[in-house]
C-alpha cells in the first residue's frame, strides 16, 4: 500500500506540472498563475506570432533534415555493423550506446568547438582558392551545424532500432531471394528493405522528436538562428505567458503522437513476423 502511494506520488510529481501547462494554455486570462476561464485565444496568438512561426519553421526544417539524414546513415551503418565479427564488434556496439548516453551539453560544446575549428581552418583556404571578384562562401554556424549535430546523436537511435530488426529477421529470406535469381541490390530492395522499413520509419520519427525537442545542443551550435525550444527559452525570460504554455502544449502533442506512432510501428512489425514464422 505504501509502495502504491509512493508510486502515485512520483507520477503526480512528474505529470502535474505538465498537466498545469496544458490547463493554463487554455486560460482566458493573461496571467499564468490566475485561471479565469477556458479559451483558445493563446493558441491563435502563438500561431500568429511571426517570431514563434519563424522558430517553428526552423525547428521543422532542422528536425526533418536531421531525421532524414540519420535514418539513411543509421540504416547504412546498421547494415554494415551486422557483418562485423571479432574483437571490433563490442567496441562498435559500445560506441553506439555511449553516443546516446553522452550528456547533451558535452555534445553541444564538442560540436561547437569542432565546427568552429574547422570553419576557422577552411574559411581562409576557401577565400584563397575562390576566383577573384566573386564573393567566397563563409562557413558559419546555422541550420547546417544544428542538423549535423542532431544527426550525430539521433543516428545511434536509428542504428539500434534497425539492428534489432535485422537481428530478428530470418536470414534464410535473403538466401531464398538470392536463390531465386535476385542480385544483391534486388535482394536489398525487395526483401531486406521492406522487412526493416518499419524500424527505419520508427527511427525517423524518434529522431524527429529528439531533434525537434532538443534545446541544449541547438543552443550551442545554432548561431543566430532560433529553434522553437530556444525561442521558448528566451521568451520565458520575459515571464511565463499563456502563449508559452500553448506552444508547449502543441509541442507536447506532436511529440506524443510521433512517439506513439513509432511504438506502434515497432510492435506491429514484430507481431507480424512472429505470426509468419509459425
Amino acid at each position: 500500500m505504501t509502495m502504491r502511494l509512493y508510486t502515485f506520488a512520483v507520477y503526480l510529481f512528474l505529470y502535474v506540472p505538465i498537466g498545469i501547462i496544458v490547463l493554463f494554455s487554455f486560460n482566458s486570462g493573461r496571467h499564468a498563475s490566475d485561471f479565469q476561464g477556458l479559451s483558445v485565444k493563446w493558441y491563435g496568438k502563438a500561431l500568429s506570432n511571426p517570431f514563434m512561426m519563424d522558430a517553428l519553421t526552423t525547428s521543422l526544417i532542422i528536425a526533418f533534415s536531421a531525421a532524414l539524414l540519420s535514418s539513411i546513415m543509421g540504416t547504412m551503418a546498421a547494415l554494415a555493423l551486422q557483418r562485423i565479427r571479432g574483437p571490433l564488434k563490442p567496441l562498435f556496439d559500445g560506441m553506439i550506446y555511449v553516443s546516446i548516453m553522452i550528456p547533451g551539453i558535452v555534445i553541444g560544446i564538442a560540436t561547437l568547438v569542432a565546427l568552429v575549428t574547422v570553419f576557422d581552418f577552411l574559411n581562409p583556404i576557401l577565400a584563397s582558392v575562390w576566383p577573384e571578384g566573386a564573393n567566397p562562401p563563409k562557413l558559419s554556424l546555422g541550420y547546417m551545424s544544428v542538423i549535423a549535430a542532431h544527426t550525430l546523436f539521433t543516428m545511434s537511435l536509428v542504428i539500434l532500432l534497425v539492428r534489432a530488426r535485422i537481428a530478428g529477421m530470418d536470414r534464410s529470406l535473403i538466401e531464398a531471394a538470392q536463390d531465386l535469381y535476385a542480385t544483391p541490390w534486388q535482394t536489398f530492395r525487395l526483401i531486406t528493405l521492406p522487412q526493416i522499413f518499419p524500424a527505419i520509419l520508427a527511427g525517423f520519427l524518434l529522431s524527429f522528436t529528439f531533434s525537434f525537442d532538443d534545446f541544449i545542443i541547438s543552443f550551442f551550435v545554432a548561431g543566430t538562428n532560433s529553434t522553437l525550444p530556444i525561442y521558448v527559452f528566451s521568451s520565458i525570460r520575459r515571464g511565463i505567458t499563456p502563449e508559452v504554455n500553448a506552444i508547449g502544449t502543441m509541442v507536447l502533442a506532436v511529440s506524443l503522437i510521433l512517439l506513439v506512432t513509432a511504438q506502434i510501428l515497432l510492435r506491429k512489425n514484430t507481431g507480424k513476423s512472429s505470426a509468419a514464422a509459425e
Partner: protein
Amino acid sequence: MTAEINNLPDADIEFRDVSKRFGDVIAVDNVSLLIKRGEFFSFLGPSGCGKTTSLRLIAGFEQPTTGGVQIGGTSVIGVPPHKRPVNMVFQHYALFPHMTVAENIGFGLRQRKPKPSRSDMDKQVDESLEMVRMSGYGNRRIWEMSGGQQQRVALARALINRPTVLLLDEPLAALDRKLRRDMQIELQTLQREVGITFILVTHDQEEALSMSDQICIMREGRVEQLGSPRELYDLPVNRYVADFVGKTNFIAGTVSQVSGGTITLETEKGMSFSGRHSPETKMLSPGDNACVAIRPELMLIGSDSESAADMNTDIALSGQIKNQIFLGEHTEYLVATDIIGDVLVLSPKYIESRHKGFGPGDRVSVGWKNEIALVLEDS
C-alpha cells in the same frame, strides 16, 4: 575443356574432392560424387554430418575450400547463388512474409532477364498453384497458410523456374507425421511428373529410403556409402550404415577364420558366429574387429523347447522376452539372450500363428540362418 567432354552426359551434379572448412571444423571432407539427371537423390545422416553444407555448396551459399563442383558439366566455382540454375526449398520455407502467395511464387520469374510479360507470369503462377493443388490461394497472405500449405507454396516458388536441380533442405521436418507421409508421396509424384533432379537432405532414414533412387550416407563430413535404398539396406558397408538404415542386431567380435565368402568371428565370451562377407565391405582378415549383423525381420522366434533344427535355423539361442510391441502386421520382441545380450526380433503374422504367441517374461528361443548374417567392419 577436356574435362567437360569426358563428363558423362547424364551427370547433373558432380563433386570432385570437395572439402569445406569453417575455421577448424571440417564440414565436408574430400567428397567425390555424381548425381544423375532426373534422379531423386538424398543426403542422409545425423546433424553435423555435412549433408546440409553439401546442399549449400550446390546452391552456392557456400564455396568449397578445395575441390570442384559442377552443375550440368560446367564448373560453378565462384558463381553466386543468383546465377545458378538450381532452386531450393528451405527448411522453414523462407517465404517472404510481406508478399502474397502469388507474389512469392512469381518472385523468381520477375528477376528473369528478359522479364516475361505480365500475362505470361500470371499464367505460369496459376499453373504452379494448380500443380501444388493451391488454386485460388494466390491472393492470400503467407501467415494465413498452414504448415502444409506453406510447404506447397515453397515448392511451387522453386519449381516455377524450371531449375535443372531442385534442392530440398529437410523440407518435411516441420510437418506432423500424417502430413509428412502425404507430402512424401506428393513429392515423389511431383518429381516423376516434372522429371528434374531432386536432391533431398534429411536425417530421417525412413523418408530417405521410401523416396530416393540413390542415397548418400554421410558421417563427419565424409561419404560413408552411396547406393540405392535396397543396396544400403541389404549390403551396408559397415556397422554405422547398417545401424543408420533400419534396425539391426550386432554381435561384436574378432575375426577368427576367413574361408571363401564366409567369415567366422569369436566374441569376447568365446562364442563363434559366422556370416557372409558383405561385398561392399573391405576384405577382413583374422584378428580384425568386426561384427555380425542380423536384421530383426530375418530372425525367428520359437518356444523355449525348440532347437535350431526344429526352427530350421543354424543358430538357436535361448532367452527371455523383455518387451513386446504389437505392430499389427508384425510383433516386435526384445529378447534378453543368455549369451549375446538384447536382441530385437520382428515376427510376421503368419509365423506368429505357428505358436500361441508370447508375452513378456516368457522363455523363448531365437534363431537365424548363417547365410542371412552379414559380417561388417565394426565402425
